[in-house]
């Protein structure tokens, strides 16, 4: 089953390559549901793994620190693909709390809510309060900016941020940048950062040492995964041109509810699983959207894929290690 999906993804990637969109890209791993990723910074090189894994062989023993990425909680969603998204978010938080190496913080890469309702944000806050990691960094997904241009999101999660909610911070020598690519979207387009944010990003990175590890995170992928479904960001290339000179760049996204990875030069791209429901692999269904799987499979799917990054020369090698059969 997984292999089949992998073939499909490879094929889709091939198509992208033929389009010249992602010539150098390669993709080694995908999974379609789960709870979250653990990131371990080891000598500036981020290492990720799905966190339902047995951590006894964790390579993070020598880690400088770790953090967890969760995404696409869609609190308020109640359709058959997952009638209880609060429970699955809780499962994700429980897994974070059970990790032997405590993460310094959590990054949520957007779509906290289904409909930007205050009650949905309240529920999310309530569940996140139970996380052992108290610091949570957010970027909005398109579902968090419905009807009020993201005002409520900004008020709750974007204090001190710029524009529609972008910001940066440093943690133990690593520079993190949260970007917003779900605001002011243009008809016919994909995700968009916009001129003002790009200028800010260029300025934010200016003067930083090329040896500083950089982590960019945003909701919609900052690389073109599947344009027909809008799975990409129209002006991401400009953003990526600003990070080219850095020795280690990691780009974390959500939105597509499945793991996909690509390494291009010194830049590693990753998309996270959702805590709420899976979506189909690109092109494998008439459209994106919640994918219903049997209830026992949804639970089994949590953290089914272990993703490791192993330093190999100048680039990163990715090892696909699905859990169980």
């Amino acid at each position: 089953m997984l292999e089949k999906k992998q073939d499909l993804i490879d094929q889709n990637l091939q198509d992208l390559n033929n389009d010249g969109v992602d010539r150098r890209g390669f993709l080694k791993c995908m999974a379609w549901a789960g709870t979250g990723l653990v990131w371990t910074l080891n000598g500036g090189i981020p290492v990720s793994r799905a966190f339902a894994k047995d951590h006894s062989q964790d390579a993070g023993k020598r880690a400088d620190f770790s953090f967890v990425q969760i995404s696409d909680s869609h609190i308020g969603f109640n359709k058959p693909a997952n009638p209880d998204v609060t429970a699955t978010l809780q499962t994700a938080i429980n897994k974070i709390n059970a990790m032997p190496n405590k993460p310094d913080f959590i990054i949520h890469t957007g779509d906290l809510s289904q409909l930007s309702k205050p009650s949905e944000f309240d529920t999310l806050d309530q569940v996140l309060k139970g996380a052992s990691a108290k610091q949570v960094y957010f970027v909005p997904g398109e579902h968090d900016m419905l009807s009020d241009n993201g005002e409520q999101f900004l008020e709750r999660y974007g204090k001190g941020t710029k524009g529609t909610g972008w910001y940066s911070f440093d943690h133990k020598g690593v520079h993190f940048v949260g970007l917003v690519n779900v605001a002011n979207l243009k008809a016919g387009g994909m995700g968009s950062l916009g001129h003002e944010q790009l200028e800010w990003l260029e300025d934010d990175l200016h003067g930083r040492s090329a040896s500083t590890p950089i982590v960019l995170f945003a909701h919609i992928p900052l690389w073109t995964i599947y344009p027909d479904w809008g799975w990409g960001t129209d002006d991401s290339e400009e953003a990526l041109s600003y990070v080219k000179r850095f020795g280690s760049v990691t780009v974390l996204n959500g939105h597509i509810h499945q793991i996909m990875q690509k390494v291009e030069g010194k830049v590693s791209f990753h998309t996270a699983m959702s805590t709420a429901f899976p979506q189909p692999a690109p092109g494998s269904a008439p459209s994106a959207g919640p994918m219903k799987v049997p209830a026992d499979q949804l639970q089994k799917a949590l953290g089914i894929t272990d993703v490791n990054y192993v330093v190999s020369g100048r680039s990163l090698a990715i090892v696909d290690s699905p859990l169980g059969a």
Partner: protein
Amino acid sequence: MRNKNMCFIPLATTAVVAIVLLLTGSHLATAADQPSMANSEIKIDNFTFGPQTVTVPVGATVTWTNKDDIPHTSVSTDGVFKSKVLDTDEKFSYTFSKAGTYSYYCTIHPKMTGTIVVK
């Protein structure tokens, strides 16, 4: 054998209904040429506006219904009309009082686009 027979009767009925519908359909088509009628329904399904292009007479009301499990909007690119966020099965209607071509899109999923031609 019995089952086969039982199937046969509904099939025959369906055929008759189809013929009646065809006759009614052609009658409706004539009526649609007159500008006073012909309101239009657009279904939002699988992240697509269907039909993608709709032609209506001046004064017609177009109604969008979201059939997806994901919210969508229907917003004209030049600000003529703007739906609220439509959750599953929610509807939005707009009455076109001026002739013209109106492009619109879903502001949440901007790949979703459509056109209303008002004649």
